[in-house]
Every structure is written in structure tokens, then in C-alpha cells.
């Protein structure tokens, strides 16, 4: 495994994702953010060109379970309990290599004690936590997240942002996170990649120079406001 993993997608989009890093993808709707994630995950095949993920084809990376995917909706199976939903990857496609147990992962996302609950008994935020635990099963090298908190209220969203940073530090996984919220992109990412629309292309990659670990109070600082302002100006010229 190389230190850096090269990812090429969307014809002329090419970027590097540091191993163990947290990169957020910010862009207006229709700029191909979700498409980019789906190409990396081998859900969509590129019309032209080639996708290389972790030095191999996207297809091979998917088959080795190198990639975990968190969708906009939790996409839980309603007839399975929280724990059985996290277990799903064990029962499909030859199972997983190793990593934390489903019970461990549920505790990691703060749902210890909710193992036997069905999705309709959980709140939207809790359902999304279950889906994050499911994506982490088998220790994927890259976690792809497609606006996972977009449908949640702001309070829940803030809390889940903090918990995601905690999960990221705890697991050391590499995260590629799509959002259309400037604040979320700046708060979560070590770098923010701004995409421009039609055709989807990389506009600019902005390094985030906020101290680690991030806290919600940081959002009230002048540094954070300056960063958010800079991202907004880039987006306006997209």
C-alpha cells in the first residue's frame, strides 16, 4: 500500500487522497459530487477513461471491500434490527476480512443498547449512525459519504459532525465526504475540494488550517469565518 492513494474520475478530475485523511467535496448541485463518489465506488462506470483507486481498478477495490459507502438516506433494511443491519456485509459477497465486530461498531457510533431496535423505532440521526457502522464493517480503506447528514435537522447534524470526527480519529480510516454545506465542509475536512459545475471539474483545493481536534466553538472564531468566506467566494465564481 502506497503512502498516497491516487484517484482519477470524471474524465479530467484527478486528485490525491492522503491515507487516513479527511477530504470534503463541496460544490453546487449538479456539479457531479455524487457522481464522483459513485464512480470511485464502482457503482457507475465512467463513460471514458479509467478509474484507479488505491493503485488498482475501482472494480477490484470494490470486490476487496476497500470501500465503505454511506448514502444520503440511511438505506437500512426495515425488517432487520439495528445489529442485523450492521451485519449485512458479513452475509453478502463472501463476507469481510477482519476489523471490529458489529456490536463494537454500534457502540462506536453511540448506539450501544439499541442492537435489537428496528429502523422504524429509531430517529433519523440514529438510523444514519447505524448506516455508518455498517459502512465501517470490515475496516474499509476509504469511507465515501454522500451528503449523509443532509436530511437531518441542524442540531442533530452538528452532533453527528462531532461524532464523525471522533469515529474518524478512532478508526484511522480515510474519508471522502460530499456536502453542499460550506460550514460542514470547512468544519470536517483537512482539505476542502471545491467542484465547479457543467462540466464537473476541480475548481480549487483549499487546505484547512484549523487546530486539531476541532470543536464546535471553533465555528465562532474569526479564522473559521474567514475560511467560510473564502470558500463562499470560490463557489460564487464556479
Amino acid at each position, binding site marked *: 500500500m502506497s503512502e498516497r492513494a491516487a484517484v482519477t474520475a470524471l474524465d479530467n478530475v484527478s486528485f490525491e487522497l492522503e491515507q487516513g485523511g479527511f477530504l470534503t467535496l463541496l460544490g453546487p448541485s449538479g456539479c457531479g459530487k455524487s457522481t464522483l463518489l*459513485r464512480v470511485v*465506488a*464502482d*457503482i457507475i462506470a465512467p463513460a471514458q477513461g479509467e478509474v484507479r483507486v488505491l493503485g488498482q481498478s475501482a472494480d477490484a477495490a*470494490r*470486490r476487496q*471491500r476497500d*470501500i*465503505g*459507502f454511506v*448514502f*444520503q*438516506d*440511511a*438505506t*437500512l*433494511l*426495515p*425488517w432487520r434490527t439495528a445489529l442485523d443491519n450492521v451485519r*449485512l*456485509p458479513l*452475509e*453478502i*459477497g*463472501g463476507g469481510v476480512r477482519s476489523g471490529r465486530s458489529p456490536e463494537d461498531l454500534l457502540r462506536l457510533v453511540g448506539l450501544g443498547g439499541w442492537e435489537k431496535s*428496528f*429502523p*422504524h423505532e429509531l430517529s433519523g440521526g440514529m*438510523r444514519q449512525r447505524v448506516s455508518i457502522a455498517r459502512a465501517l464493517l470490515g475496516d474499509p480503506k476509504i469511507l465515501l459519504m454522500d451528503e449523509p447528514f443532509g436530511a437531518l435537522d441542524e442540531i442533530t447534524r452538528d452532533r453527528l459532525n462531532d461524532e464523525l470526527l471522533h469515529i474518524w480519529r478512532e478508526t484511522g480510516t480515510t474519508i471522502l465526504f460530499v456536502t453542499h454545506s460550506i460550514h460542514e465542509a470547512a468544519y470536517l475536512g483537512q482539505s476542502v475540494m471545491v467542484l465547479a459545475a457543467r462540466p464537473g471539474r476541480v475548481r480549487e483545493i483549499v487546505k484547512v488550517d484549523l487546530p486539531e481536534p476541532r470543536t464546535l466553538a471553533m465555528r465562532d472564531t474569526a479564522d473559521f469565518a474567514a475560511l467560510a468566506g473564502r470558500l463562499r467566494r470560490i463557489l460564487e465564481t464556479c
Partner: protein
Amino acid sequence: MSDDPAQAIWQAAQARLRWKRRLLPLIGALALLLLWWALVAFFQVKPFIAPAPQVVAITLWQKADILFANLIPTAIEALSGFLIGNAVAIAIATLFVHRKTIEMAFFPIVVLINSIPVVAKAPILVLLLGNGLAPKIAIAAVICFFPTLVNMVRGLEAVSPQALELMHVLSASKWEVFRRLRLPTSIPYLFSALKIAASTAVVGAIVGEWIGSQEGIGALIIQATYNFDSALLYATVITGSVFSVGFFLTIRMLERLCVRWVPGQQS
């Protein structure tokens, strides 16, 4: 809990409501029986036109053996038809979902045939299949087949695009997508079709017996009508209905055992 007076009042109101829900339908049924009795007595309706309710009750008791003997073939036809028709429908629905070309060619026709009323379809099948037990089973089967096929295809296809993407990310095989996603998704759809099929299977068997049959609920209905034996006719209809309702309730009980999640409330 009931320390709170407001809570106690609310609970008492709930208990009264529960009793009302149980008692009122019973009172309604009794009132209608009374009205039936009063109308027959007041207008002195001839027994060959309509029987009084107590005469029907007596007939049910006295001719229980005849009624039961005729229920057996009808029940066998309905149950066999139900099993065969639904099994074939589920198999073809599975084929449709995996072979889109076949589905596109035949599914619209299936939907069209499904919209033809049962009583209109049955005589066509009687002409095609003739007399005996087997044709009645075939009629019940064909009648069950269409609603189940239509619902099952819809159920198997009612999976969200994201759930399919999830399966793809997990490198699921076609069989795994079917077993872990499509089949469980389709179960509530299947049961709503089975509940329809439970009553239409009985209708199919009875309509099949109307034309050229010596035994069965359908044959007894025709016989009683031609003999102007209205009490026997009513008793026969009640026997058939009780079986049909029992069949429906059995399927509904199975549904409650199988579907424990809240369908439709996904994600």
C-alpha cells in the same frame, strides 16, 4: 399511572371505546336479523322467495351433514387452486424481474387480464376445461394467479435505487440481491395479494361448480335455487362465506406473524 385523575379518566374512556368497538357490530348484526325477521313476518313472504332467519338457522343445523359434504370438494378445489396459482405466480414474477424483455412483452397483458372481473373469466375457463374436480382447481388457480403475479412483480421491484447501490458496493450476486433485498421487500405486497386470492379462490371454485357439477357449494346453490328451497340456498351461501372468511383470516394471521416491521416506512 392512574394516580393522576386526568390519566384515570382518559384510561376509562379508552376502555369504554374498546367495549363499544366490540359490542356495536354485534348489536348492529342482531338489529339487522330482527329487521329481516320482521319484514318476512309482516309481509308474509312466501318461503320459496325468502326464508325467515330462524328457518335458515334450523336448516343449517338439520342439514349440516349435506352442507359439510358439499363444502369438502369446494374447499379442496379452492385450497389446491390457491396453492398452485400462487406458486406459479411467484415463480413467473421472479422470472419477470430477472428477464426484463419477457416482462416488457407480457406484463401489460397480465395487468389487462387481471382487470377482467372474476365472474367474467370463470365461464371462459369452464368452456376450456370441462367438468370434474381438476378444471375447478384450474379455475381457482388461474383466478389467484393474476393478482398475485401483478403484486409480486411490483413488490420485487419496490426496492429503492440506493438499496440496490448498497448491494452493488457489497458485491452482492443476483441471488443475494434477490434473497436479501427483493424477496423480503415483496413480502407485504405478496400478502395483500394472498388476502385477495383467499376469497377469489373460493369464488372461482363456486363459479366453476355452477356449470355441470354434481357436488360442491356451487352445485348446491344451483340445486337449491331450482328447487325453490330458499332456506337451503341461504344456508349454503352462509356455509361458503364462513369458509371464505376463515380462509382470509388464516392468511391475515400468517401475515401478522411474517411482517413484523412497518412496511412503507423505509430508510
